[in-house]
């Protein structure tokens, strides 16, 4: 890897030792890092830097200690609050976040989490990877690193290097890689337990009573094996006089239904089991006036 002739930063223009110029030993090369300061400040007495002592010396301009990195004050907030804030910030990724928390109710390896996130985002375009989600959720206190037995890393002793003897001399040999598992924390479990999409849907219906017919129409159209494409839903909904003022489009309703877990995106829109139940509750107040094919 460290082959001198491969990937070296310096290209040797001369290879022959006879051609080397050894003027570096000449005193002309003496480099004085404080020369500039001395010229500018004139009368100031320059301290003799003396021989190298190996002890770190203060930076010339100094750097106040109070500029050292500070802990994020956010970490002082309760986990439940941080989790809620994360869900608010990543509103569009709420489904994936909830999916991860459910998946990690039992310890799962990072590789397993990668697979689950891949599955959850199969039909999405997202810049977030499993590692990104894990980091965000860990910062929010929603998941923790544990070992295969579910013991938190913070409670398990740090691995230390082994000492091996080679030709009479002792060496440190790094321990094997750690297998990390993720586990949903209690505050995140509590949040999952409180997750009540049906109540959210009912509240939505109360708030958007005038649009109930639109919601029902979408759920009905997507309630089939092949689902409904976005253009099909647009055609079914966007013409409705209800949506003229204020002007609203299908995407507004699909997003709200998705947040209530009544609708799911799988490359096409599909009504979920929850959506089907809620649809039954809504009764036959609305019928699809225009078939998808029509």
């Amino acid at each position, binding site marked *: *890897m*460290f082959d*001198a002739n491969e990937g*070296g*930063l*310096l*290209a*040797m*223009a*001369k290879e022959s*030792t006879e*051609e*080397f*110029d*050894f*003027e*570096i*030993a000449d005193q002309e*090369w*003496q*480099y004085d*890092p*404080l*020369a*500039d*300061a001395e010229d500018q400040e004139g009368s100031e007495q320059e301290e003799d*830097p003396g021989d*190298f002592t*190996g*002890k*770190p*010396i*203060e*930076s*010339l*301009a100094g*750097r106040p200690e109070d*500029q*050292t*990195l500070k802990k994020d004050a956010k970490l002082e907030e309760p986990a439940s609050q941080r989790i809620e804030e994360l869900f608010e910030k990543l509103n569009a990724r709420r489904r994936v976040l909830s999916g991860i928390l459910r998946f990690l109710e039992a310890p799962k390896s*990072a*590789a397993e989490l990668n697979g689950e996130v891949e599955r959850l985002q199969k039909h999405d375009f997202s810049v977030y990877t499993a*590692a990104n989600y894990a*980091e965000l959720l860990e910062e929010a206190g929603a998941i923790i690193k544990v070992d295969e037995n579910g013991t938190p890393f913070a409670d398990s002793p*740090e*691995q*230390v*290097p082994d*000492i*091996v003897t080679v030709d009479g*001399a*002792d*060496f*440190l040999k*790094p*321990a094997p*890689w*750690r*297998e*990390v598992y993720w586990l949903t924390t209690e505050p995140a479990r509590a949040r999952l337990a409180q997750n009540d999409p049906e109540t959210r849907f009912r509240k939505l219906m109360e708030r958007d009573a005038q649009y109930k017919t639109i919601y029902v129409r979408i759920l009905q159209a997507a309630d089939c094996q092949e689902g409904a494409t976005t253009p099909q839903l647009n055609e079914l909904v966007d013409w409705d006089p209800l949506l003229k003022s204020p002007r609203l489009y299908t995407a507004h309703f699909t997003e709200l239904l998705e947040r209530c877990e009544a609708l799911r995106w799988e490359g096409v829109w599909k009504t979920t089991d929850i959506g089907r139940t809620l649809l039954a509750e809504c009764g036959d107040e609305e019928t699809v006036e225009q078939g998808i094919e029509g």
Partner: protein
Amino acid sequence: MVDQMKAVDTADQSADEELACLMDQRANTYMLLSRLYLKEIDDALLHELHDMLFPTSTGDGDVDEGYLLIATYLSNLWTESLTELAVDYARSFLGNGVDAFAAAYPYESVYTSEKRLLMQDARDEVLAIYRSFGIEKGQDWGEGEDHIALELEFMRVLCERASKALRAGESDGALRLLLAQRNFLHDHLVTWVPMMTADLRRFAQTRMYEGLAYLTDGFLRTDYAMLQDILSEEEA
């Protein structure tokens, strides 16, 4: 008499070979340090580091501390270690760009110019030195020539040249190369690197880069002292 001369020649050759081996070891260490400062650790390097053995007692406290910190970090690797290290590299050496004190900027000019600016006198100095040894920076190098990775790489080149000179029986050439190394260490690396590593210890949040700071300090100090010893014997 002829036998005695042959014996002396053999002893000299043996000493030169021993010294050449030492130069090779130093070249490897400079190469490793240079690589660690050059850019983020990649997967291949991380695995290579994990497979390495680190001496426990080198005789220098900082080197031992550095190796212990690095080996301890490597003993707790997991799937996201590469990301952790990349983040720590950016935090430690690139900073947030708010001011000249936001990171351990790995340039000599920053630590030797009053306003902590890049491309100052130190860069001109080292560039002239590289050129006096017939060396130019690589085509793909877009940073200042006083970046620590380049200065360490320069030391590696000088170590390798010294090794070749010793094996070729060019004692005078080897001696001049050792003098050049000592002067470069004295005038440049050991002048400013301890300031940078002090900052690195403040900013680094992984043991890898904290250990690198200790290792660099200790290695440069012991290497400089060793060269002083060798050259004082030669001069005597």
